Protein backbone atom coordinates (compact mmCIF):
# COMPACT_ATOMS: atom_id res chain seq x y z
CA UNK A 1 0.00 0.00 0.00
CA UNK A 2 1.23 3.46 -0.92
CA UNK A 3 0.23 6.51 1.05
CA UNK A 4 1.07 10.06 0.06
CA UNK A 5 0.39 12.80 2.56
CA UNK A 6 0.50 16.46 1.57
CA UNK A 7 3.30 15.80 -0.88
CA UNK A 8 4.70 19.07 -2.18
CA UNK A 9 7.67 19.65 -4.45
CA UNK A 10 8.99 23.05 -5.40
CA UNK A 11 11.89 23.95 -7.62
CA UNK A 12 12.56 27.60 -6.86
CA UNK A 13 9.35 29.42 -7.70
CA UNK A 14 7.85 26.55 -9.63
CA UNK A 15 5.56 24.24 -7.72
CA UNK A 16 5.53 20.89 -9.47
CA UNK A 17 3.48 18.98 -6.92
CA UNK A 18 1.14 20.73 -4.51
CA UNK A 19 -0.29 19.25 -1.34
CA UNK A 20 -1.01 15.87 -2.89
CA UNK A 21 -2.60 13.20 -0.70
CA UNK A 22 -3.84 9.82 -1.82
CA UNK A 23 -3.76 6.14 -0.96
CA UNK A 24 -3.12 3.29 -3.36
CA UNK A 25 -4.72 0.03 -2.24
CA UNK A 26 -3.50 -3.48 -2.98
CA UNK A 27 -5.40 -5.85 -5.20
CA UNK A 28 -6.32 -3.39 -7.92
CA UNK A 29 -4.63 -1.50 -10.72
CA UNK A 30 -4.61 2.20 -9.90
CA UNK A 31 -4.09 4.56 -12.79
CA UNK A 32 -2.14 7.72 -12.11
CA UNK A 33 -3.35 10.12 -14.73
CA UNK A 34 -2.54 13.61 -15.76
CA UNK A 35 -1.45 15.64 -18.76
CA UNK A 36 2.25 15.85 -19.51
CA UNK A 37 3.97 18.04 -16.95
CA UNK A 38 1.29 17.42 -14.30
CA UNK A 39 3.88 16.15 -11.79
CA UNK A 40 3.32 12.40 -12.13
CA UNK A 41 6.97 11.41 -12.47
CA UNK A 42 8.03 13.75 -9.68
CA UNK A 43 5.42 12.20 -7.39
CA UNK A 44 6.61 8.69 -8.21
CA UNK A 45 10.23 9.72 -7.62
CA UNK A 46 9.24 11.10 -4.22
CA UNK A 47 7.55 7.81 -3.34
CA UNK A 48 10.82 6.03 -4.22
CA UNK A 49 12.95 8.48 -2.27
CA UNK A 50 14.83 9.70 -5.35
CA UNK A 51 13.48 13.22 -4.91
CA UNK A 52 12.98 14.71 -1.47
CA UNK A 53 9.57 16.36 -0.96
CA UNK A 54 9.63 20.04 -0.05
CA UNK A 55 6.80 19.22 2.33
CA UNK A 56 4.77 16.16 3.24
CA UNK A 57 5.83 12.55 2.91
CA UNK A 58 5.13 9.26 1.24
CA UNK A 59 5.16 5.79 2.74
CA UNK A 60 5.05 2.28 1.39
CA UNK A 61 3.57 -0.35 3.69
CA UNK A 62 3.73 2.09 6.57
CA UNK A 63 7.25 3.46 6.25
CA UNK A 64 9.32 5.57 3.90
CA UNK A 65 10.70 3.49 1.02
CA UNK A 66 14.32 4.01 2.13
CA UNK A 67 13.60 2.61 5.60
CA UNK A 68 12.83 -0.88 4.36
CA UNK A 69 15.43 -3.57 4.90
CA UNK A 70 14.91 -5.07 1.46
CA UNK A 71 13.43 -2.22 -0.61
CA UNK A 72 13.42 -4.14 -3.90
CA UNK A 73 11.05 -6.69 -2.38
CA UNK A 74 8.70 -3.90 -1.28
CA UNK A 75 8.52 -1.81 -4.40
CA UNK A 76 9.53 -2.60 -7.95
CA UNK A 77 9.75 0.49 -10.10
CA UNK A 78 9.99 1.38 -13.75
CA UNK A 79 11.06 5.00 -14.02
CA UNK A 80 10.43 7.28 -16.96
CA UNK A 81 13.87 7.65 -18.46
CA UNK A 82 16.07 4.67 -19.14
CA UNK A 83 18.06 3.79 -16.03
CA UNK A 84 20.56 1.38 -17.55
CA UNK A 85 24.19 1.55 -18.59
CA UNK A 86 24.04 1.06 -22.38
CA UNK A 87 27.25 -0.95 -22.42
CA UNK A 88 26.04 -3.60 -20.00
CA UNK A 89 24.02 -6.63 -21.06
CA UNK A 90 20.47 -7.07 -19.81
CA UNK A 91 21.52 -10.04 -17.68
CA UNK A 92 24.47 -8.21 -16.11
CA UNK A 93 22.30 -5.17 -15.42
CA UNK A 94 19.71 -7.25 -13.59
CA UNK A 95 22.38 -9.29 -11.81
CA UNK A 96 24.05 -6.10 -10.50
CA UNK A 97 20.72 -5.02 -9.00
CA UNK A 98 19.94 -8.52 -7.69
CA UNK A 99 23.33 -8.78 -5.95
CA UNK A 100 22.56 -5.80 -3.69
CA UNK A 101 19.80 -7.84 -2.06
CA UNK A 102 21.17 -11.35 -2.45
CA UNK A 103 18.39 -12.16 -4.90
CA UNK A 104 19.35 -15.48 -6.56
CA UNK A 105 20.42 -15.60 -10.21
CA UNK A 106 17.55 -17.97 -10.95
CA UNK A 107 15.25 -15.02 -10.30
CA UNK A 108 17.15 -12.98 -12.89
CA UNK A 109 16.53 -15.75 -15.44
CA UNK A 110 12.91 -15.85 -14.39
CA UNK A 111 12.21 -12.13 -14.93
CA UNK A 112 14.09 -12.24 -18.23
CA UNK A 113 11.75 -15.03 -19.32
CA UNK A 114 8.63 -13.29 -18.03
CA UNK A 115 9.49 -10.15 -20.00
CA UNK A 116 10.46 -12.08 -23.11
CA UNK A 117 14.09 -10.97 -23.07
CA UNK A 118 15.80 -14.34 -22.67
CA UNK A 119 17.05 -14.40 -26.26
CA UNK A 120 18.69 -10.95 -25.94
CA UNK A 121 19.78 -11.32 -22.32
CA UNK A 122 23.48 -11.29 -23.15
CA UNK A 123 23.32 -8.48 -25.68
CA UNK A 124 24.37 -4.99 -24.71
CA UNK A 125 21.44 -2.73 -23.89
CA UNK A 126 22.80 -0.15 -26.36
CA UNK A 127 21.18 -2.04 -29.24
CA UNK A 128 17.76 -2.40 -27.61
CA UNK A 129 14.65 -0.86 -29.13
CA UNK A 130 12.49 1.42 -27.01
CA UNK A 131 10.13 -1.47 -26.38
CA UNK A 132 12.91 -3.83 -25.31
CA UNK A 133 14.23 -1.10 -23.02
CA UNK A 134 10.78 -0.84 -21.42
CA UNK A 135 10.67 -4.61 -20.99
CA UNK A 136 14.06 -4.54 -19.29
CA UNK A 137 12.80 -1.80 -16.97
CA UNK A 138 9.81 -3.97 -16.11
CA UNK A 139 12.09 -6.98 -15.57
CA UNK A 140 14.05 -4.86 -13.08
CA UNK A 141 10.80 -3.83 -11.38
CA UNK A 142 9.75 -7.47 -10.94
CA UNK A 143 13.19 -8.61 -9.77
CA UNK A 144 12.47 -8.50 -6.04
CA UNK A 145 9.03 -10.11 -6.42
CA UNK A 146 7.71 -6.87 -4.88
CA UNK A 147 4.44 -6.36 -3.06
CA UNK A 148 4.03 -3.01 -4.78
CA UNK A 149 4.75 -2.21 -8.41
CA UNK A 150 5.14 1.37 -9.65
CA UNK A 151 5.38 1.89 -13.39
CA UNK A 152 5.84 5.27 -15.03
CA UNK A 153 4.31 5.32 -18.52
CA UNK A 154 5.00 1.63 -19.15
CA UNK A 155 3.32 1.44 -22.56
CA UNK A 156 5.51 4.17 -24.04
CA UNK A 157 7.30 2.82 -27.06
CA UNK A 158 5.63 -0.58 -26.97
CA UNK A 159 4.07 -2.13 -30.05
CA UNK A 160 0.40 -3.23 -29.85
CA UNK A 161 1.45 -6.69 -28.76
CA UNK A 162 3.57 -5.20 -25.99
CA UNK A 163 0.71 -2.94 -24.88
CA UNK A 164 -1.56 -5.95 -24.61
CA UNK A 165 1.12 -7.80 -22.67
CA UNK A 166 1.43 -4.92 -20.18
CA UNK A 167 -2.33 -4.82 -19.64
CA UNK A 168 -2.44 -8.54 -18.91
CA UNK A 169 0.63 -8.33 -16.68
CA UNK A 170 -0.74 -5.42 -14.63
CA UNK A 171 -4.07 -7.15 -14.11
CA UNK A 172 -2.42 -10.40 -13.06
CA UNK A 173 -0.12 -8.56 -10.64
CA UNK A 174 -3.16 -6.92 -9.06
CA UNK A 175 -5.02 -10.22 -8.99
CA UNK A 176 -2.12 -11.67 -6.99
CA UNK A 177 -2.92 -9.07 -4.35
CA UNK A 178 -0.15 -6.60 -5.18
CA UNK A 179 -0.45 -2.84 -5.14
CA UNK A 180 -0.11 -1.60 -8.70
CA UNK A 181 0.31 2.09 -9.55
CA UNK A 182 0.66 2.96 -13.22
CA UNK A 183 1.08 6.45 -14.57
CA UNK A 184 -0.13 7.51 -17.96
CA UNK A 185 -1.26 10.56 -19.87
CA UNK A 186 -3.57 8.36 -21.94
CA UNK A 187 -7.05 8.02 -20.47
CA UNK A 188 -8.01 5.44 -23.07
CA UNK A 189 -5.19 3.17 -21.98
CA UNK A 190 -6.09 3.50 -18.31
CA UNK A 191 -9.76 2.81 -19.03
CA UNK A 192 -8.75 -0.63 -20.26
CA UNK A 193 -6.41 -1.44 -17.38
CA UNK A 194 -7.24 0.45 -14.24
CA UNK A 195 -10.13 0.17 -11.84
CA UNK A 196 -9.14 3.03 -9.66
CA UNK A 197 -7.95 6.42 -10.86
CA UNK A 198 -5.93 9.20 -9.32
CA UNK A 199 -6.05 12.21 -11.60
CA UNK A 200 -3.73 15.16 -11.15
CA UNK A 201 -3.20 18.39 -13.03
CA UNK A 202 -0.57 21.04 -12.39
CA UNK A 203 0.54 19.05 -9.38
CA UNK A 204 -2.85 19.06 -7.67
CA UNK A 205 -5.28 16.25 -7.04
CA UNK A 206 -8.24 16.56 -9.42
CA UNK A 207 -9.95 13.25 -8.75
CA UNK A 208 -9.46 10.13 -6.65
CA UNK A 209 -12.15 7.89 -7.99
CA UNK A 210 -13.08 4.79 -9.96
CA UNK A 211 -13.34 4.61 -13.72
CA UNK A 212 -17.12 4.10 -13.48
CA UNK A 213 -17.65 7.02 -11.15
CA UNK A 214 -15.62 9.30 -13.38
CA UNK A 215 -17.84 8.49 -16.34
CA UNK A 216 -20.97 9.12 -14.33
CA UNK A 217 -19.63 12.36 -12.90
CA UNK A 218 -18.80 13.66 -16.32
CA UNK A 219 -22.49 13.67 -17.30
CA UNK A 220 -22.95 9.99 -17.82
CA UNK A 221 -24.41 8.32 -20.86
CA UNK A 222 -26.61 10.05 -23.42
CA UNK A 223 -28.91 8.94 -26.20
CA UNK A 224 -28.90 10.26 -29.75
CA UNK A 225 -32.38 10.52 -31.21
CA UNK A 226 -33.16 11.36 -34.83
CA UNK A 227 -36.80 12.18 -35.51
CA UNK A 228 -38.71 14.51 -37.87
CA UNK A 229 -40.84 15.42 -34.84
CA UNK A 230 -37.99 16.71 -32.70
CA UNK A 231 -39.97 19.55 -31.17
CA UNK A 232 -42.87 17.33 -30.11
CA UNK A 233 -40.61 14.68 -28.62
CA UNK A 234 -38.75 17.35 -26.73
CA UNK A 235 -41.92 18.47 -25.01
CA UNK A 236 -42.75 14.88 -24.10
CA UNK A 237 -39.54 14.45 -22.12
CA UNK A 238 -39.77 16.90 -19.26
CA UNK A 239 -36.77 16.92 -16.92
CA UNK A 240 -34.39 15.39 -19.42
CA UNK A 241 -31.24 17.20 -20.53
CA UNK A 242 -31.72 17.84 -24.21
CA UNK A 243 -29.48 19.50 -26.73
CA UNK A 244 -30.54 20.05 -30.31
CA UNK A 245 -27.67 18.86 -32.49
CA UNK A 246 -29.51 19.42 -35.77
CA UNK A 247 -33.18 20.32 -36.58
CA UNK A 248 -34.02 16.60 -36.45
CA UNK A 249 -31.35 15.37 -34.00
CA UNK A 250 -31.55 15.45 -30.20
CA UNK A 251 -28.93 14.47 -27.64
CA UNK A 252 -30.78 13.34 -24.53
CA UNK A 253 -29.37 12.72 -21.08
CA UNK A 254 -31.51 11.35 -18.27
CA UNK A 255 -34.00 8.87 -19.71
CA UNK A 256 -32.44 5.84 -21.33
CA UNK A 257 -33.07 4.56 -24.86
CA UNK A 258 -35.98 2.15 -24.02
CA UNK A 259 -37.78 4.90 -22.12
CA UNK A 260 -37.45 7.38 -24.99
CA UNK A 261 -38.57 4.68 -27.43
CA UNK A 262 -41.65 3.87 -25.34
CA UNK A 263 -42.57 7.56 -25.05
CA UNK A 264 -42.24 8.08 -28.80
CA UNK A 265 -44.31 4.95 -29.56
CA UNK A 266 -47.05 5.97 -27.12
CA UNK A 267 -47.47 9.22 -29.02
CA UNK A 268 -46.99 7.81 -32.46
CA UNK A 269 -43.81 9.70 -33.22
CA UNK A 270 -41.57 8.17 -35.91
CA UNK A 271 -37.93 7.59 -34.85
CA UNK A 272 -35.20 7.30 -37.49
CA UNK A 273 -32.44 6.61 -35.04
CA UNK A 274 -32.17 5.80 -31.33
CA UNK A 275 -28.56 5.30 -30.26
CA UNK A 276 -27.24 5.02 -26.70
CA UNK A 277 -23.86 6.72 -26.36
CA UNK A 278 -21.42 6.06 -23.55
CA UNK A 279 -19.63 9.20 -22.46
CA UNK A 280 -16.12 9.04 -23.76
CA UNK A 281 -13.65 8.66 -20.93
CA UNK A 282 -11.32 10.74 -23.00
CA UNK A 283 -13.84 13.58 -22.86
CA UNK A 284 -14.32 13.11 -19.14
CA UNK A 285 -10.59 13.31 -18.65
CA UNK A 286 -10.31 16.37 -20.87
CA UNK A 287 -13.13 18.09 -19.00
CA UNK A 288 -11.40 17.34 -15.71
CA UNK A 289 -7.93 18.44 -16.73
CA UNK A 290 -8.86 21.21 -19.15
CA UNK A 291 -7.82 24.00 -16.84
CA UNK A 292 -4.60 22.37 -15.80
CA UNK A 293 -2.98 21.48 -19.10
CA UNK A 294 0.51 22.86 -19.07
CA UNK A 295 0.76 23.63 -22.74
CA UNK A 296 -2.51 24.39 -24.44
CA UNK A 297 -2.59 24.55 -28.18
CA UNK A 298 -4.44 27.53 -29.59
CA UNK A 299 -6.41 27.22 -32.79
CA UNK A 300 -5.23 29.77 -35.30
Amino acid at each position, binding site marked *: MIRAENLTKRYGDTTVVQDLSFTVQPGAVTGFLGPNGAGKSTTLRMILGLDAPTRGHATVDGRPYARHG*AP*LTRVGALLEARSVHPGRSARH*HLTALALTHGIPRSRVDRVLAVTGLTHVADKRVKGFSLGMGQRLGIAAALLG*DPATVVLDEPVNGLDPEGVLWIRTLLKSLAAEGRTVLVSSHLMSEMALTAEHLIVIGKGRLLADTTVDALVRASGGASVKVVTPEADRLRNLLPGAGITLEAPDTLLVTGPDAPEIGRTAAAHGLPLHELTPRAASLEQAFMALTHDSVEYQGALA
Partner: protein
Amino acid sequence: MTTATVTPRLTHARVLHSEWHKLWTVRSTWITVLTATALVLGVGILMGATYTSDGGDSDVDTVILTLYGSQLGAIALAVLGILVTAGEYASGMIRASLTAVPGRLPVLTAKAAVYTGVTLTLTFATNLLTFLTAQVFLSDTDQAASLTDDGVLAALAGNAAGITLLGLIALGLGATLRSVPGAIGAFVGGVMILPEVLGMLPYEAMETAVRYFPTQAAGALGSATPLPGAASPGAALLALLLWAAATLAVPALLLKRRDV
Protein backbone atom coordinates in the same frame (compact mmCIF):
# COMPACT_ATOMS: atom_id res chain seq x y z
CA MET B 1 6.14 -16.03 -8.91
CA THR B 2 8.33 -16.65 -5.91
CA THR B 3 11.40 -18.67 -6.71
CA ALA B 4 13.61 -17.39 -3.91
CA THR B 5 14.37 -19.65 -0.99
CA VAL B 6 16.76 -17.26 0.76
CA THR B 7 15.27 -14.04 2.08
CA PRO B 8 16.57 -11.11 0.05
CA ARG B 9 18.01 -8.37 2.18
CA LEU B 10 20.16 -5.33 1.57
CA THR B 11 23.63 -5.52 3.16
CA HIS B 12 26.89 -3.59 2.75
CA ALA B 13 28.73 -6.70 1.64
CA ARG B 14 26.14 -7.31 -1.06
CA VAL B 15 26.34 -3.73 -2.30
CA LEU B 16 30.11 -4.22 -2.53
CA HIS B 17 29.59 -7.40 -4.56
CA SER B 18 27.16 -5.53 -6.82
CA GLU B 19 29.68 -2.75 -7.45
CA TRP B 20 32.35 -5.32 -8.22
CA HIS B 21 30.01 -6.89 -10.75
CA LYS B 22 29.15 -3.52 -12.27
CA LEU B 23 32.83 -2.61 -12.63
CA TRP B 24 33.75 -5.65 -14.68
CA THR B 25 30.65 -5.80 -16.86
CA VAL B 26 31.35 -2.68 -18.91
CA ARG B 27 34.04 -2.40 -21.56
CA SER B 28 35.34 0.98 -20.38
CA THR B 29 36.83 -0.72 -17.30
CA TRP B 30 38.83 -3.18 -19.39
CA ILE B 31 39.89 -0.45 -21.79
CA THR B 32 41.15 1.95 -19.10
CA VAL B 33 42.80 -0.77 -17.02
CA LEU B 34 44.58 -2.38 -19.99
CA THR B 35 45.59 1.04 -21.32
CA ALA B 36 47.11 1.99 -17.97
CA THR B 37 48.96 -1.32 -17.69
CA ALA B 38 50.22 -1.20 -21.28
CA LEU B 39 51.42 2.39 -20.91
CA VAL B 40 53.37 1.76 -17.72
CA LEU B 41 54.86 -1.50 -18.94
CA GLY B 42 55.54 -0.21 -22.46
CA VAL B 43 57.21 3.01 -21.39
CA GLY B 44 59.17 1.11 -18.72
CA ILE B 45 60.56 -1.34 -21.28
CA LEU B 46 61.32 1.55 -23.63
CA MET B 47 63.20 3.42 -20.91
CA GLY B 48 65.16 0.28 -19.99
CA ALA B 49 65.99 -0.72 -23.54
CA THR B 50 67.17 2.73 -24.64
CA TYR B 51 69.09 3.61 -21.46
CA THR B 52 72.81 4.21 -21.60
CA SER B 53 74.94 5.03 -18.58
CA ASP B 54 76.49 8.04 -20.34
CA GLY B 55 73.15 9.45 -21.52
CA GLY B 56 72.99 12.04 -18.74
CA ASP B 57 70.21 10.36 -16.74
CA SER B 58 72.43 8.76 -14.13
CA ASP B 59 71.07 11.00 -11.38
CA VAL B 60 67.45 10.04 -12.06
CA ASP B 61 65.92 7.76 -9.41
CA THR B 62 65.72 4.20 -10.72
CA VAL B 63 62.08 3.67 -9.82
CA ILE B 64 61.06 7.02 -11.29
CA LEU B 65 62.96 6.21 -14.46
CA THR B 66 61.35 2.78 -14.70
CA LEU B 67 57.82 4.04 -14.02
CA TYR B 68 57.85 7.06 -16.34
CA GLY B 69 54.69 5.70 -17.93
CA SER B 70 52.86 6.11 -14.60
CA GLN B 71 51.95 9.68 -15.39
CA LEU B 72 50.01 8.52 -18.43
CA GLY B 73 48.66 5.43 -16.71
CA ALA B 74 47.40 7.59 -13.86
CA ILE B 75 45.25 9.59 -16.28
CA ALA B 76 43.65 6.41 -17.67
CA LEU B 77 42.89 5.20 -14.13
CA ALA B 78 41.55 8.62 -13.11
CA VAL B 79 39.16 8.41 -16.08
CA LEU B 80 38.08 5.00 -14.76
CA GLY B 81 37.37 6.54 -11.35
CA ILE B 82 35.27 9.23 -12.99
CA LEU B 83 33.36 6.70 -15.08
CA VAL B 84 32.58 4.65 -11.98
CA THR B 85 30.67 7.56 -10.44
CA ALA B 86 29.82 10.25 -13.03
CA GLY B 87 29.29 7.55 -15.65
CA GLU B 88 26.20 6.35 -13.80
CA TYR B 89 24.68 9.80 -14.01
CA ALA B 90 25.39 9.97 -17.73
CA SER B 91 23.57 6.69 -18.40
CA GLY B 92 20.82 7.12 -15.81
CA MET B 93 21.97 3.90 -14.10
CA ILE B 94 22.26 5.91 -10.88
CA ARG B 95 18.44 5.94 -10.60
CA ALA B 96 18.40 2.14 -10.63
CA SER B 97 21.37 1.97 -8.23
CA LEU B 98 19.86 4.36 -5.71
CA THR B 99 16.42 2.77 -5.95
CA ALA B 100 18.00 -0.57 -5.06
CA VAL B 101 20.09 1.06 -2.30
CA PRO B 102 18.02 4.01 -1.09
CA GLY B 103 20.43 4.61 1.78
CA ARG B 104 22.70 5.95 -1.00
CA LEU B 105 25.93 6.26 0.98
CA PRO B 106 26.72 2.51 0.77
CA VAL B 107 26.82 2.87 -3.02
CA LEU B 108 29.53 5.55 -2.84
CA THR B 109 31.60 3.73 -0.23
CA ALA B 110 31.33 0.45 -2.14
CA LYS B 111 32.43 2.18 -5.35
CA ALA B 112 35.40 3.77 -3.59
CA ALA B 113 36.33 0.47 -1.91
CA VAL B 114 36.13 -1.61 -5.08
CA TYR B 115 38.06 1.01 -7.03
CA THR B 116 40.76 1.19 -4.34
CA GLY B 117 41.18 -2.57 -4.18
CA VAL B 118 41.34 -3.03 -7.92
CA THR B 119 43.58 -0.05 -8.70
CA LEU B 120 46.01 -0.62 -5.85
CA THR B 121 46.45 -4.32 -6.62
CA LEU B 122 46.68 -3.82 -10.34
CA THR B 123 49.06 -0.87 -10.21
CA PHE B 124 51.37 -2.53 -7.71
CA ALA B 125 51.49 -5.71 -9.80
CA THR B 126 52.15 -3.68 -12.94
CA ASN B 127 54.89 -1.74 -11.16
CA LEU B 128 56.63 -4.94 -10.00
CA LEU B 129 56.43 -6.44 -13.48
CA THR B 130 57.64 -3.23 -15.11
CA PHE B 131 60.56 -2.84 -12.72
CA LEU B 132 61.71 -6.44 -13.15
CA THR B 133 61.34 -6.29 -16.93
CA ALA B 134 63.20 -2.98 -17.19
CA GLN B 135 65.98 -4.36 -15.00
CA VAL B 136 66.61 -7.07 -17.59
CA PHE B 137 67.92 -4.22 -19.78
CA LEU B 138 69.36 -2.10 -16.96
CA SER B 139 71.36 -4.80 -15.18
CA ASP B 140 74.68 -3.82 -16.79
CA THR B 141 74.16 -0.05 -16.42
CA ASP B 142 74.52 2.37 -13.50
CA GLN B 143 70.73 2.04 -12.99
CA ALA B 144 71.02 -1.62 -12.01
CA ALA B 145 68.90 -2.25 -8.93
CA SER B 146 67.00 -5.03 -7.23
CA LEU B 147 63.74 -5.22 -5.33
CA THR B 148 65.63 -5.66 -2.08
CA ASP B 149 67.58 -2.44 -2.51
CA ASP B 150 66.83 0.33 -0.05
CA GLY B 151 63.56 2.08 -0.85
CA VAL B 152 62.82 0.27 -4.11
CA LEU B 153 59.88 -1.84 -2.95
CA ALA B 154 58.54 1.08 -0.91
CA ALA B 155 58.70 3.33 -3.98
CA LEU B 156 56.96 0.76 -6.20
CA ALA B 157 54.22 0.43 -3.57
CA GLY B 158 54.19 4.19 -2.95
CA ASN B 159 53.70 4.86 -6.64
CA ALA B 160 50.73 2.47 -6.63
CA ALA B 161 49.27 4.13 -3.54
CA GLY B 162 49.75 7.57 -5.09
CA ILE B 163 47.99 6.61 -8.32
CA THR B 164 45.17 4.96 -6.39
CA LEU B 165 44.64 8.05 -4.23
CA LEU B 166 44.73 10.34 -7.27
CA GLY B 167 42.12 8.05 -8.83
CA LEU B 168 39.98 8.31 -5.69
CA ILE B 169 40.13 12.10 -6.01
CA ALA B 170 38.89 11.70 -9.60
CA LEU B 171 36.16 9.33 -8.41
CA GLY B 172 35.09 11.91 -5.82
CA LEU B 173 35.07 14.70 -8.40
CA GLY B 174 32.91 12.50 -10.63
CA ALA B 175 30.42 11.92 -7.83
CA THR B 176 30.31 15.61 -6.99
CA LEU B 177 30.04 17.02 -10.52
CA ARG B 178 27.91 14.14 -11.89
CA SER B 179 29.28 14.77 -15.37
CA VAL B 180 32.06 12.79 -17.07
CA PRO B 181 33.48 15.65 -19.16
CA GLY B 182 33.08 18.07 -16.25
CA ALA B 183 34.97 15.81 -13.87
CA ILE B 184 37.73 15.06 -16.40
CA GLY B 185 38.11 18.80 -16.95
CA ALA B 186 38.23 19.46 -13.22
CA PHE B 187 40.77 16.70 -12.67
CA VAL B 188 43.11 17.73 -15.47
CA GLY B 189 42.72 21.45 -14.77
CA GLY B 190 42.47 21.48 -10.99
CA VAL B 191 44.56 18.51 -9.93
CA MET B 192 47.16 18.19 -12.68
CA ILE B 193 47.72 21.66 -14.16
CA LEU B 194 46.81 24.17 -11.44
CA PRO B 195 49.59 23.15 -9.00
CA GLU B 196 52.15 23.46 -11.81
CA VAL B 197 50.98 27.02 -12.42
CA LEU B 198 50.92 27.87 -8.71
CA GLY B 199 54.42 26.42 -8.31
CA MET B 200 55.73 28.88 -10.86
CA LEU B 201 54.56 31.88 -8.86
CA PRO B 202 57.46 33.70 -7.23
CA TYR B 203 56.41 33.03 -3.64
CA GLU B 204 58.41 30.63 -1.53
CA ALA B 205 55.45 29.71 0.67
CA MET B 206 53.53 28.71 -2.46
CA GLU B 207 56.42 26.58 -3.62
CA THR B 208 56.43 24.73 -0.30
CA ALA B 209 52.64 24.34 -0.27
CA VAL B 210 52.60 22.91 -3.78
CA ARG B 211 54.70 19.96 -2.57
CA TYR B 212 51.65 18.73 -0.72
CA PHE B 213 49.31 19.03 -3.68
CA PRO B 214 48.05 15.65 -4.97
CA THR B 215 50.21 15.11 -8.05
CA GLN B 216 53.39 16.38 -6.39
CA ALA B 217 52.73 14.27 -3.30
CA ALA B 218 52.11 11.22 -5.48
CA GLY B 219 55.42 11.89 -7.24
CA ALA B 220 57.26 12.02 -3.92
CA LEU B 221 55.79 8.64 -2.96
CA GLY B 222 57.20 6.94 -6.03
CA SER B 223 60.89 7.65 -5.55
CA ALA B 224 63.36 5.21 -3.99
CA THR B 225 65.70 8.05 -3.08
CA PRO B 226 64.65 11.31 -1.42
CA LEU B 227 63.69 13.88 -4.07
CA PRO B 228 65.07 17.40 -3.73
CA GLY B 229 62.32 19.95 -3.13
CA ALA B 230 59.69 17.32 -2.43
CA ALA B 231 57.78 16.29 0.67
CA SER B 232 58.95 13.25 2.63
CA PRO B 233 57.11 10.05 1.71
CA GLY B 234 55.28 9.96 5.04
CA ALA B 235 54.11 13.56 4.77
CA ALA B 236 53.21 13.07 1.10
CA LEU B 237 51.09 10.01 1.88
CA LEU B 238 49.30 11.84 4.68
CA ALA B 239 48.65 14.84 2.42
CA LEU B 240 47.27 12.61 -0.34
CA LEU B 241 45.04 10.73 2.09
CA LEU B 242 43.62 14.04 3.31
CA TRP B 243 43.03 15.27 -0.25
CA ALA B 244 41.23 12.04 -1.14
CA ALA B 245 39.19 12.07 2.07
CA ALA B 246 38.16 15.67 1.53
CA THR B 247 37.26 15.09 -2.12
CA LEU B 248 35.11 12.08 -1.16
CA ALA B 249 33.49 13.83 1.80
CA VAL B 250 31.86 16.40 -0.49
CA PRO B 251 29.79 13.94 -2.55
CA ALA B 252 29.10 11.87 0.58
CA LEU B 253 27.45 14.91 2.15
CA LEU B 254 25.69 15.95 -1.07
CA LEU B 255 24.46 12.47 -1.97
CA LYS B 256 21.93 12.43 0.87
CA ARG B 257 20.58 15.87 0.05
CA ARG B 258 20.42 16.02 -3.70
CA ASP B 259 17.61 14.73 -5.84
CA VAL B 260 18.59 12.09 -8.34
